[in-house]
Protein backbone atom coordinates (compact mmCIF):
# COMPACT_ATOMS: atom_id res chain seq x y z
CA UNK A 1 0.00 0.00 0.00
CA UNK A 2 1.17 3.53 -0.68
CA UNK A 3 1.23 6.29 1.91
CA UNK A 4 -2.16 7.63 0.90
CA UNK A 5 -3.86 4.19 1.03
CA UNK A 6 -5.07 4.69 -2.54
CA UNK A 7 -2.24 3.10 -4.47
CA UNK A 8 -0.98 -0.49 -4.32
CA UNK A 9 2.62 -1.36 -5.07
CA UNK A 10 3.30 -4.72 -6.66
CA UNK A 11 6.28 -6.44 -8.25
CA UNK A 12 5.46 -7.88 -11.68
CA UNK A 13 8.04 -10.52 -12.67
CA UNK A 14 10.66 -11.94 -13.05
CA UNK A 15 8.82 -15.26 -12.60
CA UNK A 16 5.45 -13.97 -13.77
CA UNK A 17 4.27 -15.94 -16.84
CA UNK A 18 3.39 -12.70 -18.64
CA UNK A 19 6.85 -11.18 -18.42
CA UNK A 20 9.14 -11.43 -21.46
CA UNK A 21 12.37 -12.74 -20.03
CA UNK A 22 14.22 -12.15 -16.80
CA UNK A 23 13.27 -8.70 -15.72
CA UNK A 24 10.59 -7.17 -13.53
CA UNK A 25 8.42 -4.11 -13.02
CA UNK A 26 7.60 -2.29 -9.82
CA UNK A 27 4.09 -1.05 -10.51
CA UNK A 28 2.13 1.51 -8.53
CA UNK A 29 -1.51 0.73 -9.15
CA UNK A 30 -4.66 2.66 -8.51
CA UNK A 31 -7.22 -0.07 -8.81
CA UNK A 32 -6.31 -1.73 -12.10
CA UNK A 33 -4.61 1.32 -13.59
CA UNK A 34 -0.83 1.66 -13.63
CA UNK A 35 0.09 5.08 -12.22
CA UNK A 36 3.84 4.60 -12.17
CA UNK A 37 6.06 1.85 -13.52
CA UNK A 38 9.72 1.22 -12.74
CA UNK A 39 11.69 -1.42 -14.63
CA UNK A 40 13.92 -3.62 -12.47
CA UNK A 41 16.74 -4.95 -14.66
CA UNK A 42 19.88 -6.72 -13.51
CA UNK A 43 18.88 -10.38 -13.34
CA UNK A 44 20.96 -11.18 -16.41
CA UNK A 45 23.89 -8.81 -15.93
CA UNK A 46 27.08 -10.58 -17.02
CA UNK A 47 29.33 -7.60 -17.85
CA UNK A 48 29.83 -8.59 -21.48
CA UNK A 49 31.77 -5.46 -22.38
CA UNK A 50 34.29 -6.01 -19.59
CA UNK A 51 34.54 -9.76 -20.33
CA UNK A 52 35.38 -8.99 -23.94
CA UNK A 53 38.47 -7.04 -22.88
CA UNK A 54 39.89 -10.17 -21.23
CA UNK A 55 39.33 -12.57 -24.13
CA UNK A 56 41.14 -12.74 -27.43
CA UNK A 57 39.52 -11.35 -30.58
CA UNK A 58 38.38 -14.76 -31.75
CA UNK A 59 37.24 -16.04 -28.34
CA UNK A 60 34.80 -13.12 -28.19
CA UNK A 61 32.91 -14.57 -31.16
CA UNK A 62 31.66 -17.29 -28.80
CA UNK A 63 30.63 -14.67 -26.24
CA UNK A 64 28.76 -11.99 -28.22
CA UNK A 65 25.72 -14.03 -29.42
CA UNK A 66 24.62 -14.35 -25.78
CA UNK A 67 23.72 -10.64 -25.77
CA UNK A 68 20.43 -11.35 -27.56
CA UNK A 69 19.04 -14.86 -27.29
CA UNK A 70 16.18 -14.84 -29.88
CA UNK A 71 18.26 -13.00 -32.51
CA UNK A 72 21.92 -13.86 -31.81
CA UNK A 73 23.47 -13.58 -35.28
CA UNK A 74 23.37 -9.78 -35.44
CA UNK A 75 25.90 -9.61 -32.61
CA UNK A 76 28.39 -11.90 -34.34
CA UNK A 77 27.97 -10.04 -37.62
CA UNK A 78 28.29 -6.53 -36.11
CA UNK A 79 31.34 -7.50 -34.05
CA UNK A 80 32.97 -9.08 -37.11
CA UNK A 81 32.14 -6.09 -39.32
CA UNK A 82 33.80 -3.68 -36.88
CA UNK A 83 36.99 -5.79 -36.78
CA UNK A 84 37.01 -6.12 -40.56
CA UNK A 85 36.82 -2.34 -40.87
CA UNK A 86 39.81 -1.82 -38.56
CA UNK A 87 41.85 -4.50 -40.34
CA UNK A 88 40.76 -3.40 -43.81
CA UNK A 89 39.65 -6.95 -44.65
CA UNK A 90 37.76 -7.57 -47.84
CA UNK A 91 34.98 -10.09 -47.14
CA UNK A 92 34.28 -12.47 -50.06
CA UNK A 93 30.92 -11.94 -51.76
CA UNK A 94 29.86 -15.49 -51.03
CA UNK A 95 30.39 -14.90 -47.30
CA UNK A 96 28.31 -11.71 -47.53
CA UNK A 97 25.45 -13.61 -49.13
CA UNK A 98 25.62 -16.44 -46.58
CA UNK A 99 25.62 -13.84 -43.79
CA UNK A 100 22.53 -12.20 -45.29
CA UNK A 101 20.69 -15.53 -45.40
CA UNK A 102 21.64 -16.30 -41.79
CA UNK A 103 20.67 -12.82 -40.56
CA UNK A 104 17.29 -12.93 -42.30
CA UNK A 105 16.51 -16.46 -41.10
CA UNK A 106 17.31 -15.23 -37.61
CA UNK A 107 14.98 -12.26 -38.15
CA UNK A 108 12.11 -14.54 -39.21
CA UNK A 109 12.71 -16.79 -36.19
CA UNK A 110 12.75 -13.80 -33.86
CA UNK A 111 9.62 -12.22 -35.36
CA UNK A 112 7.74 -15.53 -35.20
CA UNK A 113 8.65 -15.77 -31.54
CA UNK A 114 7.67 -12.12 -30.98
CA UNK A 115 4.28 -12.53 -32.67
CA UNK A 116 3.73 -15.67 -30.61
CA UNK A 117 4.51 -13.64 -27.49
CA UNK A 118 1.87 -11.08 -28.45
CA UNK A 119 -0.66 -13.89 -28.97
CA UNK A 120 0.20 -15.31 -25.56
CA UNK A 121 -0.22 -11.90 -23.91
CA UNK A 122 -3.81 -11.54 -25.15
CA UNK A 123 -4.77 -15.14 -24.38
CA UNK A 124 -4.49 -16.67 -27.87
CA UNK A 125 -2.26 -19.52 -26.77
CA UNK A 126 -2.55 -21.37 -30.08
CA UNK A 127 -0.42 -18.75 -31.81
CA UNK A 128 2.79 -19.21 -29.75
CA UNK A 129 2.45 -22.99 -30.20
CA UNK A 130 2.23 -22.61 -33.97
CA UNK A 131 4.89 -19.94 -34.42
CA UNK A 132 7.37 -21.77 -32.21
CA UNK A 133 6.67 -24.91 -34.23
CA UNK A 134 7.67 -23.10 -37.43
CA UNK A 135 10.63 -21.49 -35.67
CA UNK A 136 11.85 -25.00 -34.90
CA UNK A 137 12.27 -25.70 -38.61
CA UNK A 138 14.53 -22.65 -38.84
CA UNK A 139 16.52 -23.88 -35.83
CA UNK A 140 16.93 -27.21 -37.66
CA UNK A 141 18.38 -25.29 -40.61
CA UNK A 142 20.80 -23.48 -38.30
CA UNK A 143 21.80 -26.80 -36.78
CA UNK A 144 22.68 -28.19 -40.20
CA UNK A 145 24.58 -25.07 -41.26
CA UNK A 146 26.36 -24.03 -38.08
CA UNK A 147 26.25 -26.98 -35.68
CA UNK A 148 24.32 -25.05 -33.04
CA UNK A 149 20.61 -24.43 -32.68
CA UNK A 150 20.50 -21.20 -30.67
CA UNK A 151 24.07 -19.86 -30.39
CA UNK A 152 25.51 -20.34 -33.84
CA UNK A 153 29.05 -18.93 -33.41
CA UNK A 154 29.19 -18.99 -37.20
CA UNK A 155 29.96 -15.50 -38.50
CA UNK A 156 33.49 -14.45 -37.65
CA UNK A 157 35.99 -11.81 -38.78
CA UNK A 158 36.80 -12.37 -42.44
CA UNK A 159 33.70 -14.33 -43.45
CA UNK A 160 31.91 -17.37 -42.09
CA UNK A 161 33.29 -20.49 -40.42
CA UNK A 162 32.05 -23.15 -42.85
CA UNK A 163 30.58 -23.27 -46.31
CA UNK A 164 26.94 -24.22 -46.85
CA UNK A 165 26.22 -27.96 -47.14
CA UNK A 166 25.21 -28.85 -50.72
CA UNK A 167 21.58 -29.59 -49.99
CA UNK A 168 21.10 -26.70 -47.56
CA UNK A 169 19.71 -24.07 -50.00
CA UNK A 170 17.06 -26.57 -51.09
CA UNK A 171 16.06 -27.17 -47.48
CA UNK A 172 15.88 -23.41 -46.84
CA UNK A 173 13.53 -22.98 -49.78
CA UNK A 174 11.36 -25.83 -48.51
CA UNK A 175 11.12 -24.30 -45.04
CA UNK A 176 10.28 -20.89 -46.55
CA UNK A 177 7.56 -22.46 -48.71
CA UNK A 178 6.19 -24.17 -45.63
CA UNK A 179 6.14 -20.94 -43.59
CA UNK A 180 4.50 -19.07 -46.49
CA UNK A 181 1.76 -21.70 -46.62
CA UNK A 182 1.16 -21.34 -42.88
CA UNK A 183 1.07 -17.52 -42.79
CA UNK A 184 -2.61 -17.17 -43.91
CA UNK A 185 -3.74 -19.35 -40.98
CA UNK A 186 -1.76 -17.14 -38.60
CA UNK A 187 -3.34 -14.07 -40.14
CA UNK A 188 -6.87 -15.36 -39.68
CA UNK A 189 -6.09 -16.61 -36.18
CA UNK A 190 -4.39 -13.48 -34.90
CA UNK A 191 -5.16 -10.39 -36.96
CA UNK A 192 -8.76 -11.26 -37.82
CA UNK A 193 -9.58 -12.00 -34.22
CA UNK A 194 -11.88 -9.53 -32.44
CA UNK A 195 -9.83 -9.92 -29.26
CA UNK A 196 -6.74 -8.67 -31.08
CA UNK A 197 -8.64 -5.65 -32.42
CA UNK A 198 -10.03 -4.80 -29.00
CA UNK A 199 -6.72 -5.17 -27.19
CA UNK A 200 -4.16 -3.88 -29.68
CA UNK A 201 -5.68 -1.10 -31.79
CA UNK A 202 -4.77 2.21 -30.15
CA UNK A 203 -2.57 0.51 -27.55
CA UNK A 204 0.29 2.71 -26.27
CA UNK A 205 0.69 4.88 -29.38
CA UNK A 206 3.49 7.37 -29.95
CA UNK A 207 4.31 9.78 -32.75
CA UNK A 208 7.52 9.89 -34.84
CA UNK A 209 8.98 12.92 -33.03
CA UNK A 210 8.53 11.34 -29.61
CA UNK A 211 9.97 8.05 -30.90
CA UNK A 212 13.08 9.67 -32.39
CA UNK A 213 13.61 11.79 -29.26
CA UNK A 214 13.54 8.65 -27.13
CA UNK A 215 15.92 6.65 -29.33
CA UNK A 216 13.31 4.19 -30.65
CA UNK A 217 14.64 2.22 -33.64
CA UNK A 218 13.72 -0.75 -35.79
CA UNK A 219 10.16 -1.98 -36.34
CA UNK A 220 8.97 0.13 -33.38
CA UNK A 221 10.05 3.30 -35.21
CA UNK A 222 8.80 2.15 -38.60
CA UNK A 223 5.37 1.60 -37.03
CA UNK A 224 5.09 5.40 -36.80
CA UNK A 225 5.73 5.90 -40.53
CA UNK A 226 9.45 6.75 -40.42
CA UNK A 227 11.14 4.83 -43.23
CA UNK A 228 14.47 4.21 -41.51
CA UNK A 229 16.25 0.93 -41.97
CA UNK A 230 20.03 0.45 -41.90
CA UNK A 231 19.73 -2.30 -44.50
CA UNK A 232 18.75 0.46 -46.96
CA UNK A 233 20.31 3.58 -45.45
CA UNK A 234 23.77 2.16 -44.69
CA UNK A 235 23.85 -1.23 -46.44
CA UNK A 236 26.03 -4.02 -45.12
CA UNK A 237 26.51 -7.68 -46.15
CA UNK A 238 24.71 -8.26 -49.50
CA UNK A 239 21.67 -6.02 -48.95
CA UNK A 240 22.85 -3.55 -51.58
CA UNK A 241 22.35 -6.09 -54.37
CA UNK A 242 18.94 -7.29 -53.23
CA UNK A 243 15.52 -5.90 -53.96
CA UNK A 244 13.19 -5.50 -50.98
CA UNK A 245 10.87 -2.99 -49.38
CA UNK A 246 10.76 -1.42 -45.96
CA UNK A 247 7.30 -1.99 -44.47
CA UNK A 248 5.90 0.93 -42.48
CA UNK A 249 2.65 1.78 -40.74
CA UNK A 250 1.27 5.16 -39.72
CA UNK A 251 -0.49 4.87 -36.39
CA UNK A 252 2.39 3.85 -34.08
CA UNK A 253 0.13 1.81 -31.79
CA UNK A 254 0.44 -1.83 -30.73
CA UNK A 255 -1.35 -3.08 -33.83
CA UNK A 256 0.98 -1.11 -36.12
CA UNK A 257 4.02 -2.58 -34.38
CA UNK A 258 2.63 -6.10 -34.84
CA UNK A 259 1.76 -5.48 -38.51
CA UNK A 260 5.22 -4.10 -39.33
CA UNK A 261 6.75 -7.29 -37.91
CA UNK A 262 4.25 -9.36 -39.87
CA UNK A 263 5.21 -7.61 -43.13
CA UNK A 264 8.91 -7.98 -42.36
CA UNK A 265 8.55 -11.77 -42.25
CA UNK A 266 7.30 -11.64 -45.86
CA UNK A 267 10.12 -9.32 -46.91
CA UNK A 268 12.73 -11.52 -45.22
CA UNK A 269 11.45 -14.54 -47.16
CA UNK A 270 11.87 -12.48 -50.33
CA UNK A 271 15.43 -11.44 -49.37
CA UNK A 272 16.53 -15.01 -48.57
CA UNK A 273 15.21 -16.37 -51.86
CA UNK A 274 17.10 -13.68 -53.80
CA UNK A 275 20.30 -14.13 -51.81
CA UNK A 276 20.26 -17.88 -52.41
CA UNK A 277 19.52 -17.42 -56.10
CA UNK A 278 22.34 -14.92 -56.60
CA UNK A 279 24.76 -16.88 -54.38
CA UNK A 280 28.20 -16.36 -55.94
CA UNK A 281 30.81 -19.10 -55.96
CA UNK A 282 34.26 -18.62 -54.52
CA UNK A 283 35.79 -18.59 -51.08
CA UNK A 284 33.62 -18.22 -48.00
CA UNK A 285 36.26 -16.57 -45.84
CA UNK A 286 39.09 -14.14 -46.36
CA UNK A 287 42.65 -14.99 -45.52
CA UNK A 288 43.13 -14.10 -41.86
CA UNK A 289 45.76 -14.92 -39.26
CA UNK A 290 45.03 -18.20 -37.39
CA UNK A 291 42.64 -17.70 -34.43
CA UNK A 292 45.35 -18.09 -31.79
CA UNK A 293 47.63 -15.52 -33.42
CA UNK A 294 44.84 -13.14 -34.42
CA UNK A 295 45.89 -9.53 -33.87
CA UNK A 296 44.16 -6.34 -34.93
CA UNK A 297 46.12 -3.17 -35.73
CA UNK A 298 45.43 -0.03 -33.64
CA UNK A 299 42.29 1.82 -34.61
CA UNK A 300 38.59 2.04 -33.92
CA UNK A 301 35.45 1.31 -35.90
CA UNK A 302 31.70 1.47 -35.54
CA UNK A 303 29.49 -1.19 -37.12
CA UNK A 304 25.75 -0.70 -37.47
CA UNK A 305 23.27 -3.45 -38.09
CA UNK A 306 19.48 -3.72 -38.29
CA UNK A 307 18.26 -6.49 -36.02
CA UNK A 308 14.71 -7.71 -35.56
CA UNK A 309 14.47 -5.50 -32.44
CA UNK A 310 16.13 -2.35 -33.75
CA UNK A 311 19.53 -0.87 -34.34
CA UNK A 312 22.63 -2.61 -33.01
CA UNK A 313 25.90 -0.69 -32.87
CA UNK A 314 29.28 -2.15 -32.01
CA UNK A 315 32.08 0.28 -31.30
CA UNK A 316 35.40 -1.54 -31.15
CA UNK A 317 38.69 0.08 -30.11
CA UNK A 318 41.98 -1.69 -30.68
CA UNK A 319 45.39 -0.67 -29.40
CA UNK A 320 47.02 -3.53 -31.28
CA UNK A 321 47.70 -6.95 -29.82
CA UNK A 322 45.63 -9.98 -28.98
CA UNK A 323 42.85 -8.41 -26.93
CA UNK A 324 40.35 -5.63 -27.69
CA UNK A 325 40.96 -2.42 -25.75
CA UNK A 326 37.24 -1.62 -25.51
CA UNK A 327 34.04 -2.93 -27.07
CA UNK A 328 30.88 -0.92 -26.61
CA UNK A 329 27.50 -2.39 -27.51
CA UNK A 330 24.46 -0.27 -28.25
CA UNK A 331 21.42 -2.51 -28.09
CA UNK A 332 17.88 -1.49 -29.03
CA UNK A 333 16.21 -3.10 -26.03
CA UNK A 334 18.01 -0.83 -23.57
CA UNK A 335 15.99 2.15 -24.80
CA UNK A 336 12.80 0.21 -25.61
CA UNK A 337 12.84 -1.72 -22.36
CA UNK A 338 13.59 0.98 -19.81
CA UNK A 339 12.72 4.58 -20.66
CA UNK A 340 10.15 3.99 -23.40
CA UNK A 341 8.38 1.19 -21.56
CA UNK A 342 8.18 3.11 -18.26
CA UNK A 343 6.47 6.02 -20.02
CA UNK A 344 4.17 3.93 -22.19
CA UNK A 345 2.83 1.79 -19.34
CA UNK A 346 1.49 4.80 -17.45
CA UNK A 347 -2.30 4.98 -17.59
CA UNK A 348 -2.87 1.46 -18.93
CA UNK A 349 -4.38 -1.47 -17.10
CA UNK A 350 -2.17 -4.04 -15.43
CA UNK A 351 -3.38 -6.65 -17.95
CA UNK A 352 -1.87 -4.55 -20.76
CA UNK A 353 1.59 -4.52 -19.17
CA UNK A 354 2.66 -7.83 -20.72
CA UNK A 355 1.11 -6.94 -24.07
CA UNK A 356 2.86 -3.55 -24.37
CA UNK A 357 6.17 -5.26 -23.50
CA UNK A 358 5.49 -7.86 -26.19
CA UNK A 359 4.59 -5.31 -28.88
CA UNK A 360 7.89 -3.49 -28.22
CA UNK A 361 9.70 -6.87 -28.54
CA UNK A 362 11.98 -6.23 -25.58
CA UNK A 363 14.93 -8.58 -25.09
CA UNK A 364 16.09 -8.56 -21.41
CA UNK A 365 19.62 -10.03 -21.94
CA UNK A 366 20.30 -6.99 -24.10
CA UNK A 367 19.02 -4.56 -21.42
CA UNK A 368 21.37 -5.93 -18.78
CA UNK A 369 24.25 -6.94 -21.02
Amino acid at each position, binding site marked *: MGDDFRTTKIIFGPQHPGIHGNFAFRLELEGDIVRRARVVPGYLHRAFEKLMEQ*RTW*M*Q*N*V*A*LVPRICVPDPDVNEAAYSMAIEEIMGLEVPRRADHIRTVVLELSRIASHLMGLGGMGGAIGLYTLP*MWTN*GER*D*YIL*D*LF*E*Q*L*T*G*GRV*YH*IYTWPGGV*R*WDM*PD*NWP*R*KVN*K*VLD*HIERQLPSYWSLFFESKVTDARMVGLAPYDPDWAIAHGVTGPNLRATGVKYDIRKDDPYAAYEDLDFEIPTRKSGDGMARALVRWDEVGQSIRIIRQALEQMPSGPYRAKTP*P*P*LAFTVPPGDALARIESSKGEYNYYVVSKGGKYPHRVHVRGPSFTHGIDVLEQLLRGYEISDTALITATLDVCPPDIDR
Partner: protein
Amino acid sequence: MGDVVRKTIRPFRALRFLGRKPHTVRIPHEQHNDIEGEPLPTGRYRGIHVNDWDLCISCGLCAMACPCDAIEMIEVEGEGGKKRPEVSYGRCCFCGFCEDACPKKCMHLTSNHTMLDTDPRPFVFLPTPGIREFEKEYVVQTSKLCLVEERDGKKVVVQGKPRPRKQ
Protein backbone atom coordinates in the same frame (compact mmCIF):
# COMPACT_ATOMS: atom_id res chain seq x y z
CA MET B 1 -27.16 -14.87 -45.83
CA GLY B 2 -23.75 -15.74 -47.27
CA ASP B 3 -22.11 -14.24 -44.21
CA VAL B 4 -24.16 -16.42 -41.89
CA VAL B 5 -23.23 -19.56 -43.84
CA ARG B 6 -19.55 -18.56 -43.83
CA LYS B 7 -19.57 -17.90 -40.11
CA THR B 8 -21.32 -21.22 -39.46
CA ILE B 9 -18.88 -23.23 -41.54
CA ARG B 10 -15.76 -21.41 -40.35
CA PRO B 11 -15.28 -23.14 -36.98
CA PHE B 12 -15.31 -26.54 -38.70
CA ARG B 13 -12.12 -25.62 -40.55
CA ALA B 14 -10.34 -26.52 -37.33
CA LEU B 15 -11.14 -30.18 -38.07
CA ARG B 16 -8.41 -30.32 -40.72
CA PHE B 17 -5.80 -30.09 -37.96
CA LEU B 18 -7.02 -33.40 -36.50
CA GLY B 19 -5.26 -35.36 -39.22
CA ARG B 20 -1.91 -33.57 -38.82
CA LYS B 21 1.05 -34.97 -36.95
CA PRO B 22 2.12 -33.00 -33.88
CA HIS B 23 5.30 -30.91 -33.95
CA THR B 24 6.49 -32.35 -30.67
CA VAL B 25 9.08 -35.11 -30.96
CA ARG B 26 9.10 -37.61 -28.10
CA ILE B 27 12.84 -37.89 -27.67
CA PRO B 28 14.38 -40.47 -27.17
CA HIS B 29 11.47 -42.67 -28.36
CA GLU B 30 11.25 -40.86 -31.69
CA GLN B 31 13.89 -39.67 -34.13
CA HIS B 32 14.08 -35.91 -34.69
CA ASN B 33 14.00 -35.22 -38.43
CA ASP B 34 14.28 -32.06 -40.51
CA ILE B 35 11.70 -30.86 -43.04
CA GLU B 36 12.88 -33.38 -45.67
CA GLY B 37 12.82 -36.27 -43.20
CA GLU B 38 16.58 -36.50 -42.80
CA PRO B 39 17.71 -37.41 -39.29
CA LEU B 40 19.15 -34.77 -36.99
CA PRO B 41 21.70 -33.97 -35.62
CA THR B 42 24.08 -34.05 -38.56
CA GLY B 43 27.86 -34.40 -38.46
CA ARG B 44 28.36 -30.66 -38.05
CA TYR B 45 26.59 -30.68 -34.69
CA ARG B 46 28.77 -29.52 -31.81
CA GLY B 47 28.31 -31.98 -28.94
CA ILE B 48 30.53 -34.00 -26.62
CA HIS B 49 34.26 -34.15 -27.40
CA VAL B 50 36.23 -37.08 -28.70
CA ASN B 51 40.03 -37.15 -28.89
CA ASP B 52 42.16 -39.67 -30.72
CA TRP B 53 45.18 -40.29 -28.46
CA ASP B 54 47.13 -42.01 -31.23
CA LEU B 55 47.21 -38.73 -33.16
CA CYS B 56 47.25 -36.24 -30.25
CA ILE B 57 50.66 -34.58 -29.90
CA SER B 58 49.87 -32.92 -26.55
CA CYS B 59 50.41 -29.43 -27.96
CA GLY B 60 47.77 -27.80 -25.74
CA LEU B 61 46.41 -25.50 -28.46
CA CYS B 62 42.85 -26.66 -27.67
CA ALA B 63 43.27 -25.45 -24.09
CA MET B 64 44.63 -22.11 -25.32
CA ALA B 65 41.81 -21.58 -27.82
CA CYS B 66 39.05 -22.35 -25.32
CA PRO B 67 37.11 -19.17 -24.42
CA CYS B 68 35.65 -20.74 -21.27
CA ASP B 69 38.83 -22.24 -19.79
CA ALA B 70 37.07 -25.63 -19.92
CA ILE B 71 40.07 -27.61 -21.15
CA GLU B 72 42.99 -28.50 -18.90
CA MET B 73 46.05 -30.41 -20.07
CA ILE B 74 46.79 -33.10 -17.49
CA GLU B 75 49.51 -35.70 -17.20
CA VAL B 76 48.06 -39.23 -17.07
CA GLU B 77 49.90 -42.22 -15.67
CA GLY B 78 50.99 -44.70 -18.32
CA GLU B 79 51.18 -42.14 -21.14
CA GLY B 80 54.92 -41.61 -20.91
CA GLY B 81 54.67 -38.11 -19.50
CA LYS B 82 52.42 -36.86 -22.31
CA LYS B 83 49.64 -34.48 -21.42
CA ARG B 84 46.04 -35.02 -22.52
CA PRO B 85 43.14 -32.56 -22.63
CA GLU B 86 40.50 -32.95 -19.92
CA VAL B 87 37.16 -31.23 -20.62
CA SER B 88 34.86 -29.83 -17.96
CA TYR B 89 31.22 -29.77 -19.06
CA GLY B 90 30.31 -27.30 -16.36
CA ARG B 91 32.24 -24.74 -18.36
CA CYS B 92 32.14 -25.86 -22.01
CA CYS B 93 30.04 -23.66 -24.30
CA PHE B 94 30.29 -26.01 -27.32
CA CYS B 95 31.80 -23.38 -29.62
CA GLY B 96 34.11 -25.88 -31.34
CA PHE B 97 37.16 -23.59 -31.27
CA CYS B 98 39.25 -26.48 -29.84
CA GLU B 99 38.43 -28.49 -32.94
CA ASP B 100 39.47 -25.57 -35.17
CA ALA B 101 42.74 -25.06 -33.29
CA CYS B 102 43.79 -28.73 -33.31
CA PRO B 103 46.71 -29.15 -35.77
CA LYS B 104 46.27 -32.94 -36.05
CA LYS B 105 42.44 -32.81 -36.22
CA CYS B 106 42.25 -35.44 -33.49
CA MET B 107 39.96 -33.31 -31.28
CA HIS B 108 36.42 -33.51 -32.60
CA LEU B 109 32.95 -32.58 -31.39
CA THR B 110 30.50 -35.46 -31.90
CA SER B 111 26.75 -35.26 -32.35
CA ASN B 112 26.09 -36.71 -28.88
CA HIS B 113 24.74 -34.09 -26.58
CA THR B 114 23.11 -35.69 -23.56
CA MET B 115 24.85 -36.98 -20.46
CA LEU B 116 22.81 -37.99 -17.45
CA ASP B 117 24.23 -38.90 -14.06
CA THR B 118 23.53 -38.25 -10.41
CA ASP B 119 27.27 -38.01 -9.76
CA PRO B 120 28.90 -34.72 -10.86
CA ARG B 121 32.39 -36.20 -11.32
CA PRO B 122 31.88 -37.77 -14.80
CA PHE B 123 31.18 -34.31 -16.22
CA VAL B 124 34.92 -33.64 -16.10
CA PHE B 125 36.47 -36.37 -18.22
CA LEU B 126 39.24 -37.26 -20.65
CA PRO B 127 37.85 -37.45 -24.19
CA THR B 128 38.91 -40.71 -25.86
CA PRO B 129 37.70 -42.34 -29.10
CA GLY B 130 35.55 -44.64 -26.95
CA ILE B 131 32.80 -42.00 -26.99
CA ARG B 132 32.14 -42.90 -30.61
CA GLU B 133 30.56 -46.12 -29.28
CA PHE B 134 27.65 -44.02 -28.02
CA GLU B 135 27.08 -42.21 -31.31
CA LYS B 136 23.94 -44.21 -32.03
CA GLU B 137 22.56 -43.88 -28.50
CA TYR B 138 20.72 -40.88 -27.21
CA VAL B 139 22.29 -40.69 -23.75
CA VAL B 140 26.03 -41.04 -23.23
CA GLN B 141 26.69 -43.55 -20.46
CA THR B 142 28.85 -41.62 -18.05
CA SER B 143 29.93 -44.83 -16.32
CA LYS B 144 32.04 -45.69 -19.38
CA LEU B 145 33.76 -42.30 -19.71
CA CYS B 146 37.43 -41.98 -18.86
CA LEU B 147 37.87 -40.32 -15.46
CA VAL B 148 41.08 -39.27 -13.77
CA GLU B 149 41.73 -38.67 -10.07
CA GLU B 150 44.77 -37.41 -8.24
CA ARG B 151 46.35 -39.99 -5.95
CA ASP B 152 49.67 -39.40 -4.17
CA GLY B 153 50.41 -36.44 -6.42
CA LYS B 154 49.85 -38.43 -9.62
CA LYS B 155 46.90 -38.39 -12.00
CA VAL B 156 45.51 -41.92 -12.19
CA VAL B 157 42.75 -43.23 -14.45
CA VAL B 158 40.03 -44.50 -12.10
CA GLN B 159 37.26 -45.32 -14.58
CA GLY B 160 36.88 -46.18 -18.26
CA LYS B 161 39.54 -47.23 -20.73
CA PRO B 162 42.97 -45.80 -19.96
CA ARG B 163 44.09 -46.45 -23.56
CA PRO B 164 41.65 -45.99 -26.39
CA ARG B 165 41.12 -48.83 -28.81
CA LYS B 166 42.70 -48.38 -32.22
CA GLN B 167 40.26 -47.81 -35.05
